Structures are given as C-alpha cells and as structure tokens.
C-alpha cells in the first residue's frame, strides 16, 4: 500500500506546511496557519507574529526560560496543546495532530529589535516529525517536498 504523503510548499527554499489550527483550551476556533518545517529546531514554536495574530495570552508563569531564534532572544512559554489539521495525501481527508507549541515573546526593548523579532515565522521542529511519525523528503531540483507517514 502506498504511504500517505503530505505535500509541502517550497517558497524561497523554505518548506511550508499550510494547515488549520485550533485550541479549545485557548478558546481559539479554527484558524488558517502556515509554518516552516525546520529540522534545525528541536521544538515547535508559535512565532510572536502568530501569537499576536491569534491574540494568545502568553503567561509569564508558564515561562520555560529563554531561547535564541533567528538572531533574537525570546522568552519561551508553554501553551496548551494546539491541534493542527492538514490534508493527508491527495484526498480531502484531514489528519489532526496535537502540537506542543511553545509561544515566543521577545525580550528586546528597542523598537528595531522588536521589529526583527516580529518578522520570524512559526516553526515545526523535530518534535513534530517524531511525534507525528512523518519522514521528510525534499528534492529541490524537482521542486518537490513532502512528509510521508511512517506510522
């Protein structure tokens, strides 16, 4: 049987997964979402831009220390699991996966550094690939990238 493939979009040599996210605990209904697949990141992060876009309240009591990302330093805070849905294969069937995102909030106070921090995208890191049992396949010469279900 052919394995399920989730096609990724390649933009500017970055791998983008387009999905819909929602969180009952955050009282966030379904929202359109895009994130970069980043094998250089151990964890998955909701960018400051998306935290603001979805108006998620980042509580300092849930802080898990600081993290350097994209040349900027952020406070990372655990948020309740968010469910990410995307199409599996060519069908219009959805796969929904709970993602233990951390939310990012810049520690910088200067306007210029705050702007730089807000430019960074959301990231699906190695935890996403291992928890969801997907392997990552990229053939840039053919402009093809996909996740393949190995579960």
């Amino acid at each position, binding site marked *: 049987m052919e394995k399920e493939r989730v096609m990724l979009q390649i933009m500017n040599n970055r791998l983008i997964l*387009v999905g819909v996210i929602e969180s009952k605990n955050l009282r966030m209904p379904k929202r359109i979402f895009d994130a970069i697949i980043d094998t250089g990141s151990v964890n998955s992060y909701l960018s400051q*831009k998306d935290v603001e876009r979805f108006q998620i309240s980042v509580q300092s009591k849930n802080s898990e220390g600081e993290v350097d990302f994209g040349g900027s330093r952020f406070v990372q805070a655990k948020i309740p699991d968010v469910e990410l*849905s995307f199409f599996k294969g060519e069908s*219009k069937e959805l796969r929904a996966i709970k993602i233990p995102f951390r939310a990012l909030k810049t520690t910088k106070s200067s306007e210029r550094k705050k*702007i730089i921090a*807000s430019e960074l995208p959301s990231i699906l890191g190695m935890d996403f690939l291992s928890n969801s049992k997907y392997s990552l396949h990229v053939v840039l010469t053919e402009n093809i990238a996909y996740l393949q279900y190995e579960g």
Partner: protein
Amino acid sequence: MVDDDAVSMLLSAQSDMKWFGANFTKFKKEFNNKFIAFRNKQVIDSDSNLDSLMIKLRKSNINTADVFIEFLSNVKAIL
C-alpha cells in the same frame, strides 16, 4: 467525520499561499521590509511595523486571525 469548515478553510488557505508563492518575487520588490496581510488572493494592507498593521486591520473590522501575514525583505534571514 468530515469537517467541512476545516476542509474549505484549508483549500482556500492553500490556494492563497500558492498565489503568494507565485507572486513572491514581485511582492518582495513592491513591499521590501514590510509585513503584508492577504486573503482570497488579494493584498489587504501592508506596513513596516507589525503592530501598526494589526491596528489598521482591526480598524477595518478585519479579524487578524483570518488573514495571512508575511514579512517580505530582500535581506535573507537565517533561522
């Protein structure tokens, strides 16, 4: 169970992101160092400051969660 809402949102989101990708080079020239908000294959607004863009969108009664917001720059960022 088929979630029709999520399916239609996802179809529209994928189509928007493909459109954005197809116009990426043009937009990078036009909106260098700016955030742009887009949906339904249309640029809704842009600003060099994310907070200002959010304020403009909310003033226009646009839910910021219902649009894509991307930053465009000729300077490459390393994650």
